[in-house]
């Protein structure tokens, strides 16, 4: 499938994008008393793949929701091409898509209609053109046989791919993935990694991937950041992760299983 994937790139009708840059400046967000992001700043260059790692509950999803405008910051700002991500201008003119961790597929619609909804609602073409475009996006991720199925009939890996292809029909300039490879077997994970990298290479999509997946970070990232306690404790190339100097980083990336001194006993006295 991947030969088909990479060779068909030219013939596929997706536009090459004007990639956008993302700049997050002094972002803070609390829920009730819980301080999730503390004065968080980050710049992602146009066309870059940035991988954000961090322990569960560290606020990675919350950060993505801020970038795509689903969440209002308490203070600070997210700038897309220099303009506030929440502004009308950006909402209307910059195409952004988020691949949700759980897929967030529309359960009452078939896979085909899940993809077609965006195009139909925004009247981006005749029904025939929409059909072609949707089938193209599905074929790109070898999902053409699933077109008539409902999300509940799909396996976990297929759901993730449908979620990605649904993002794809929007021809996003900025594509955010929330843990795209969690819960997947190693081969499916590798496939998703390849998809993410290929999409960036072919369409110059600025890409931010949230993941715990060390292999993914090592193989496709331009830069990697590690989020902990509301802020980045490390940022650098994938190489820089191989021999981290910061103990928090090495403990997070290469935790040692120590049966004589188990972690859970430290938490539960």
């Amino acid at each position, binding site marked *: 499938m991947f030969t088909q994937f990479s060779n068909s790139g030219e013939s596929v009708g997706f536009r090459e994008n004007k990639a956008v840059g993302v700049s997050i400046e002094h972002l803070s967000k609390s829920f009730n008393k819980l301080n999730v992001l503390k004065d968080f700043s980050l710049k992602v260059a146009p066309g870059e793949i940035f991988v954000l790692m961090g322990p569960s509950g560290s606020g990675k999803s919350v950060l993505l929701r801020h970038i795509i*405008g689903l969440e209002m910051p308490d203070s600070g700002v997210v700038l897309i091409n220099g303009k506030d991500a929440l502004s009308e201008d950006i*909402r209307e003119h910059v195409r*952004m898509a988020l691949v949700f961790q759980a897929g967030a*597929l529309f*359960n009452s619609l078939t896979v085909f209609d899940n993809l077609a909804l*965006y195009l139909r609602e925004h009247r981006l073409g005749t029904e025939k053109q929409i059909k072609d475009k949707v089938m193209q996006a599905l074929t790109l991720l070898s999902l053409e046989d699933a077109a008539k199925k409902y999300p509940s009939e799909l396996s976990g890996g297929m759901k993730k791919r449908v979620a990605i292809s649904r993002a794809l029909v929007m021809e996003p300039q900025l594509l955010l993935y929330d843990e795209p490879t969690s819960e997947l077997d190693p081969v499916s994970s590798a496939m998703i990694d390849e998809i993410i990298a290929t999409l960036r290479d072919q369409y110059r999509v600025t890409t931010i991937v949230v993941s715990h997946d060390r292999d993914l970070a090592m193989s496709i990232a331009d830069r990697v950041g590690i989020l902990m306690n509301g802020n980045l404790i490390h940022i650098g190339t994938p190489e820089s992760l191989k021999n981290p100097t910061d103990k928090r980083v090495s403990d997070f990336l290469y935790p040692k299983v120590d049966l004589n001194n188990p972690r859970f006993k430290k938490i539960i006295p």
Partner: protein
Amino acid sequence: MNSIRSVLEGVGSTLILFMRSISHVGTLSRQKSRFIEQCYVIGYTTLPIVGILSFFVGSVLALQSGYSMQDFGTQQFIGALVGLSMVRELGPMMVAILLAGRVGSAITAELASMKVNQEVDALVTMNIPPAKILVLPRLAAVLMMMPVLTVISNLVGWFGGALVCKYTGFISVEPQQYFQALRHVVKFKDVIDGICKAEIFGFIVVLVCSSIGLSTRGGPREIGAAVTKAVVSSLVLILVLDYFVTKLLLAILS
């Protein structure tokens, strides 16, 4: 204090949802299939239960009033009483209550599960306003179907009353006499008043149930809680509003 705040928040978010839905009213012509689907859900699925309950409400109304009237020997006016009560009060009220239980609960459950499943967030990221495709077609459909359901409820209720009057020994009023009294008293204006009421109730039930569904946060447990809250709020609103709307309509009448 907290409960007052949450009620005010609820009212606020419902009003905002109302404004948002209305602002997309121009897109309705492009949402025909959703509108028709909702008409089907609202109208067709509620119809059987509306029919059955209206029949028995009309019947019991005739039975009770027939029983009280026999002391005065005024049974021949029973048609007027049943007719007017059905049209002005019981028809609209019952349709609204059934709508809340049957359709309102389903709307809340569906929207709440979409919210919890992040489908609503997905719509927002696609720049598709949830109010436009999830709420507006339902509001339009309920306005379309309420008059139909109410008229059917009225007719079935009248018919139920007529049957009881004919076959109950101590009433023994022929259908002809029953409907004569009914026609004499029930004016077209009464039917319209009843339909107005039904429209108001139906619109509010759908709006409130949608709003509660879309403000659900959390997991599956909260979906159940949202449905309960939606049905209870709808019933309270119907009964409280009924008094004020009736008062208003009577004021216009005189």
